[in-house]
């Protein structure tokens, strides 16, 4: 989409001499005509115009408050990053095509037709600068769930072939190989075996029947394999019959993040079918925020009926385990700040779970200023971390997060989302953070009171 041009102005203000940053370059997939793209976007937008969506789009009073809750607006100060502005084409399509006053808007052309240029311009707003964190809903006087609307608007964008390349690539890979980051069934099996040997922990792979099916995210499989050992160690100690399965292990759902509902469903169904096949009563999700959203809250809607098993995020499982006394933990003498993964706490409802676990660990939890369910997002969720051109702003968002966590003065940083964690690792290196983000699960596994010590 970019031409060589000599007409760019030099940027003599910045430390690095270059030309002024050109406008965002837009990614396109497929070779549809512009008309086709718009039509695909409109058809797929329209599929989401239900009562709830309509209520939200009618209710906005354009007060602009939402900007003040959004980590991206706060980092950039760019009015285009105002949450409600991010769904403008979606809203425009609704008002023109579906709302009760559609005839009126059309007749007087008060809401013009959405154009392909507009959709392209909005790619950055719908993908690079929204993690679907839902903080904007908290501040909105009308309580509009903008994150859900952004997620919906992505459906139209995907089918119009207007997804950032990186996100499209990993999604396509996930659809084809079963994992977005190369954690194919074979890789998964090998790495589970390796972790079993390395940590001398008994692994259960491909058991025919089990009460508990354990999922992993490809981030863990590839970057934080200790998670697999930690989960196994805990479940073994609790005497659970559990298993990993190569036919249903991937917890991430890039179909959901990128906006392909068909693929989202296929990805969820792999796991659901596997759990049914082995008669699982419980599916444990790893430390991954959006996986919780995808299976716990959207899984049944993909399946078309209630799920025949329970779904828990690992932090909920651990909270229940310490609550019931089936898991005993050693005391960790540290002050801790906890970073809440948005999809698990604010949008998932499991805010108290990690706190129970931390309490059982005996640490002193220091809540950050806007903590718990009001937590500010780390800026990496919703697929944002995959997108290279979003890096500059993502680091800025994380800068604010580091300051906020720093203000707690806590010695140890803990979270329960490996996507957040990789964002902390990546940004930490970039911004020379003097701390390290730790996993709640691994902290628990490292501090189990072993059978013999009981």
């Amino acid at each position, binding site marked *: 989409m970019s031409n060589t041009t000599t007409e760019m102005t030099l940027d003599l203000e910045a430390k690095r001499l270059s030309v002024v940053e050109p406008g965002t370059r837009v990614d396109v997939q497929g070779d549809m005509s512009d008309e086709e793209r718009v039509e695909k976007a409109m058809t797929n937008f329209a599929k989401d*115009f*239900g*009562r*709830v969506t*309509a*209520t*939200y789009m*009618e*209710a*906005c*009073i*354009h*007060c*602009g*408050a939402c*900007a*003040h*809750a959004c980590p991206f*607006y706060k980092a950039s100060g760019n*009015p*285009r990053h*105002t949450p*409600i*502005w991010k769904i403008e084409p979606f809203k425009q399509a609704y008002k023109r095509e*579906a*709302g*009760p*006053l559609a005839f*009126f808007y059309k007749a007087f052309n008060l809401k013009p037709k959405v154009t392909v240029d507009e959709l392209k311009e909005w790619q950055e707003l719908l993908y690079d600068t929204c993690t679907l964190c*839902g903080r904007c*809903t*908290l*501040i*909105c*006087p*009308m*309580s*509009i*769930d903008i994150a859900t609307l952004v997620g919906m608007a992505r459906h139209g964008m995907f089918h119009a072939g207007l997804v950032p390349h990186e996100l499209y690539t990993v999604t396509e890979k996930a659809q084809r190989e079963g994992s977005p980051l190369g954690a194919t069934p074979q890789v998964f099996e090998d790495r589970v075996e390796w972790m079993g040997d390395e940590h001398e922990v008994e692994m259960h792979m491909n058991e025919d029947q089990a009460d508990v099916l354990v999922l992993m995210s490809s981030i863990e499989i590839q970057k934080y394999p200790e998670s697999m050992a930690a989960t196994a160690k805990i479940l073994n100690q609790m005497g659970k019959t559990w298993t990993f399965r190569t036919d249903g292990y991937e917890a991430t759902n890039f179909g959901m993040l990128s906006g392909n509902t068909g693929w989202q469903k296929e990805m969820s169904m792999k796991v659901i079918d596997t759990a049914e096949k082995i008669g699982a009563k419980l599916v444990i999700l790893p430390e991954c925020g959006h996986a919780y959203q995808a299976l716990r*809250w959207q*899984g*049944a*809607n993909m*399946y*078309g*009926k*209630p*799920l025949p098993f329970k*779904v828990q995020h690992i932090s909920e499982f651990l909270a229940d385990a310490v609550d019931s006394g089936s898991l005993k933990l050693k005391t960790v003498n540290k002050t801790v700040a906890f970073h809440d993964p948005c999809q698990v*706490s*604010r*949008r*998932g*409802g*499991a*805010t108290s779970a990690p706190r129970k676990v931390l309490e059982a660990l005996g640490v002193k939890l220091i809540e950050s*200023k*806007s903590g718990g*369910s*009001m937590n500010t997002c780390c800026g990496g969720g919703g697929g944002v971390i995959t997108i290279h051109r979003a890096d500059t702003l993502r680091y800025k968002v994380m800068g604010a997060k580091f300051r906020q966590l720093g203000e707690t003065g806590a010695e140890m940083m803990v979270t329960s989302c490996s996507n957040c964690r990789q964002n902390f690792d990546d940004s930490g290196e970039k911004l020379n953070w003097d701390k390290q983000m730790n996993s709640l699960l691994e902290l628990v596994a490292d501090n189990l009171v072993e059978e013999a010590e009981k």
Partner: protein
Amino acid sequence: MTLLDFARGPAMQIAIIIFVVGIVWRLVGVWGLRQKKDLSEARSKGAWVGGLKGLFAHAWPYKPFVPSVGTQYIVGYVIHLGLFIVLFFGTPHMLFFADIVGFTWWTLPGGVITFVAVITTVALFIALAKRLTNPVQRLISNFDDYATWFVTTLPFVTGLATNANLWPDYETGLAIHLLSVWLLLIYFPFGKLMHSFWFVVSRYTTGSRFARRGGMA
């Protein structure tokens, strides 16, 4: 027929019909849309309690947001309370409604109403100034935002002018004031003034959806 007769007669009837039919049309147009049932297992029962809580929770910003939007909320409250007080507790307004409903009620002294109306008008101008100067609001505003402001402010300005007897001809002035209110009623169903209904639906929807999950909204 004088302008005042017109304002008190056919103009009022037309305005009220458009107002009522328009509101029903818009509400039914949205409520008539399909909505898939959420099949996920609820964390807790009684989501409607969360819906009701949502109605009140968003009446004032949560603590971390007060520094950034607290003032804006105060201006908003001045506008809305002012609207309410002047509309229902101004003696001429009460008498006007009493004619329709058949009973009277307590009102505030004229001086107080004038004072409230002036404050409200000032607050409306502050809101407009903010909309025009704040980069975020400027970007996201459209025709409706300015039209809404205009039809809301006009009755205040014409009302104050009538009250202060600033019109060359009192009766024509009063007629203009009445017509400005009918304009508000006619515009009401077509723009964001409908937020006086949507705020209930939207806050309840989010409140109950997230109470079901145990999340925060």
